[in-house]
């Protein structure tokens, strides 16, 4: 009798404990700047990318801890350089229950092209996409385009049938291409599904139980992705255990104080550079000697110290050129750009403009207060070699308008640029090819035949080793003609509570070279 009672009690206890475990839903809370764009064809910034990588899947994903891509929705691909044929997995279903087929891939591509927004520019060299059969899709290029596989990491596959059932008002067969529907709903096969979405407040997501790869039990059950939290609010929320991962936009001082309180610091490297761009279309930076003078005058070490968080973590690391260290074609980390005031003075002496004649406006983007510190640093550095400069604050909208004409473009502009597809082409072509001049990425207005030739060769060369050599040569050429002060490689630093483990942002061997991909929730683990 006593034994039976013990057995019953033990069983009851076990049931209660199991129930307790099952009921303990894990919630991950993180934030980014608004607005959270759900429509994957319009996704372009960090918040959009995080949503896209979790709600949708792509044919390929970046390899962990190294450059290159692995098949994902595809089982593999064949290419002759001008066309790519992908075999698709046949066990993937959308969250709606519809099977994922080649038609969906073609539709997703056509939709992105038709809307012409977000990252559609990555596919301008694609002539057409066609479904060979339900599990085979073929992309044909207009010309050789080596970065295509990388670009596919930004082509989320959308449920065509579901979108077709929810078309809004518009012209033609596809009406609005489901824009109204997809701004509030997801139609993907991703590991997470949308529970609610308020583009200014938060998107709540939950695990997709039918995910084709299955989901780790420790992956967060619910994700609350918040938008537009102030630094002071995030600081307090994390300290009180009410928030898990901050955005990377917190000032270094706030990150430092959170780290001092015991928060872990997650890092994403090798995807973004901080570029100080010199307008090569007007005096004084139309003279390469003047450009080299200010490049040598800039205090790179102080710049890195300015964004230091702790003794070992910083929001920036020394740059070796136009390509962040670790990416294809980057120069090794021991070849960093350094300050040399004597060399700066030598180049300045060779410049056709006298320092006292120079009119240099140092602009910084009003929405990025950190840039003001760099503008002031440059002002002091340039003054040391006799160049007087004026610091000018520009709101982003005004900056974008001004740089559309070289004569209105400030002498010095500061921007952060990331690769978007982990390939150096998407980073450099838009910045330095002469046909790309006059965008927010290219206020240099650079016209250099060698640079153009290397950029074009990089696009059409399919051999990886050869491509790496081309981009290294390009990097060296850019250092030689200095259209830009390569201030630093940016490290995105996120403060996080210790409730969550994010291998992709804490272990370099599991890191991805694609901005935002580290926030794949299915790869995270909640500790309670």
């Amino acid at each position, binding site marked *: 009798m006593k034994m039976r009672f013990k057995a019953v009690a033990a069983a009851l206890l076990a049931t209660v404990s199991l129930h307790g475990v099952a009921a303990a839903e894990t*919630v991950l809370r993180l934030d980014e700047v*608004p*607005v959270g*764009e759900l*429509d994957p064809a*319009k996704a*372009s910034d960090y918040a959009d990318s995080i949503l896209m990588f979790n709600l949708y899947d792509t044919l390929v994903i970046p390899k962990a801890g190294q450059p290159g891509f692995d098949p994902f929705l595809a089982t593999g691909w064949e290419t002759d350089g001008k066309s790519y044929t992908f075999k698709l997995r046949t066990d993937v279903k959308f969250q709606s229950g519809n099977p994922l087929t080649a038609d969906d891939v073609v539709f997703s591509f056509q939709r992105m092209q038709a*809307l*012409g*927004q*977000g*990252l*559609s*520019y990555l596919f301008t060299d694609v002539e057409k996409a066609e479904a060979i059969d339900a599990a085979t899709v073929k992309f044909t290029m207009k010309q050789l385009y080596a970065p295509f596989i990388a670009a596919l990491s930004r082509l989320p596959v959308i449920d065509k049938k579901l979108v077709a059932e929810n078309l809004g008002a518009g012209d033609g067969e596809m009406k609005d291409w489901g*824009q109204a529907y997809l*701004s*509030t709903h997801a139609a993907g096969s991703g590991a997470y599904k949308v529970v609610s979405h*308020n*583009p*200014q*407040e938060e998107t709540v997501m939950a695990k997709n139980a039918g995910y084709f790869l299955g989901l780790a039990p420790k992956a967060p059950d619910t994700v*609350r992705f*918040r938008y*537009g*939290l*102030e630094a*002071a*609010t995030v600081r*307090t*929320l994390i*300290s*009180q255990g*009410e928030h898990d991962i901050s955005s990377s936009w917190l000032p270094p001082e706030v990150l430092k104080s959170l780290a001092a309180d015991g928060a872990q610091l997650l890092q994403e490297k090798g995807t973004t550079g901080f570029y100080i761009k010199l307008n090569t279309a007007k005096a004084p930076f139309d003279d390469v000697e003047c450009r080299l003078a200010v490049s040598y005058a800039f205090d790179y070490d102080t710049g890195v110290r300015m964004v230091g968080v702790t003794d070992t973590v910083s929001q920036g690391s020394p740059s070796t050129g136009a390509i962040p260290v670790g990416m294809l074609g980057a120069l090794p980390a021991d070849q960093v750009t350094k300050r040399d005031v004597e060399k700066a003075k030598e180049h300045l002496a060779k410049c056709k403009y006298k320092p006292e004649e120079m009119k240099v406006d140092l602009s910084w983007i009003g*929405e990025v207060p950190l840039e003001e510190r760099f503008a002031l640093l440059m002002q002091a550095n340039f003054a040391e070699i006799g160049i007087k400069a004026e610091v000018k604050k520009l*709101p*982003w*909208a*005004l900056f*974008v*308008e001004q740089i559309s004409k070289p004569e209105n473009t400030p002498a010095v502009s500061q921007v952060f640029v990331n690769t978007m597809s982990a390939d150096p082409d998407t980073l450099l072509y*838009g910045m330095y090819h002469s046909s790309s001049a006059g*965008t*927010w*990425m290219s206020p240099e207005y650079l016209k250099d035949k060698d640079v153009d030739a290397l950029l074009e060769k990089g696009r059409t060369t399919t051999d990886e080793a050869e491509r790496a050599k081309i981009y290294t040569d390009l990097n060296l050429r850019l250092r030689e003609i200095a259209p830009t002060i390569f201030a630093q490689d940016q490290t995105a630093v996120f403060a996080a509570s210790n409730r969550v483990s994010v291998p992709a942002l804490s272990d370099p061997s599991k890191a991805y070279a694609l901005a935002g991909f580290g926030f794949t929730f299915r790869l995270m683990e909640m500790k309670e």
Partner: protein
Amino acid sequence: MSPLIRLLAKRLGTSVIVLIGVSLLIFAIARVIPGDPARIALGPNATTEAVAALRGKLHLDAPFLTQYGYFIADLFRGDLGLSLYTNRPVMADIAQFLPATLELVIVSGIMMVAIGLPLGILSARRRGSWVDHTVRLVTLLGVSAPAFVWAVVLMLCFSYFIKIFPIAGRISDTFSIPSVTGFLLVDTLLAGDIKAFGNAVWHVILPAFALALSGIGQAARLVRSNMVETYDKPYIEMAEAYGFPEKRIARRYALRPSLIPSLTIIGLDFAAMLGSAFLVEAVYAWPGLSRYGVAVILRKDLNAIVGTVLVISAVFLIVNLIVDLLVSILNPRIRLSQRAS
């Protein structure tokens, strides 16, 4: 026609004219802000064709008055256009965000009246005493620092160091309340969920108090100075000479005339909180219209800018109308002047 109705009709007429003026002005100003709204909305890498198509859809290439004509025609259909910031109809955005701001501002307004007026009265009745000096000092602090400073200070004091109030949001994540009116304090009651109501109250206290502090200080100081002035009037002296109790003198003869100028300022303060709520909303992650308004200005979202400003102006005018009516009820001379005119 009763003087009150005449006053109401007159004020409504001028309000409509003001709204038309505001709409024209903000419509013009929004178009002067630098940047191409279509380019900003579609992103820096959007194709030229996509940008041109959106410009056409928004009539941005049409002359100013033609654009205004389209806007007015849509407005009469109850359509404020599409927000390029959220990709949703502006009406839907305003319907979602306005109740949150109104709820915050109304609670702040109640605090302003419930705390500011008694403090002012107390200070005036105890003029020259330590109570008076303390109230004047404390209210001076309230007036001298902007709301966002108080928002951060209060958050640090009462959410971080002493964990009494929540840090952000309108309600805890554990509650799921269906939105009926958008006012959480009302919706929780409609849902019959007292616990959720308590939670929503608990969330609104700190941001509302931060927003109200300046108004509380102003109301208290204004009521005090007006009452002190009134206390020097001959009819108060006469009441005192007749031996009326001090409480009665204060309530009946000193407070009522003192309330008239105070009420006008409190009304203006209340309406001004709609605009100044932005930073408090930002600090407390309060999903309101003020925060939305600033976000759409930064992104040059033309339809949303005009819609938001119009709605805030309309609320401002309604509050002023209510204040005018209250003042005319309190002050018979205004009612009589309407009759005479």
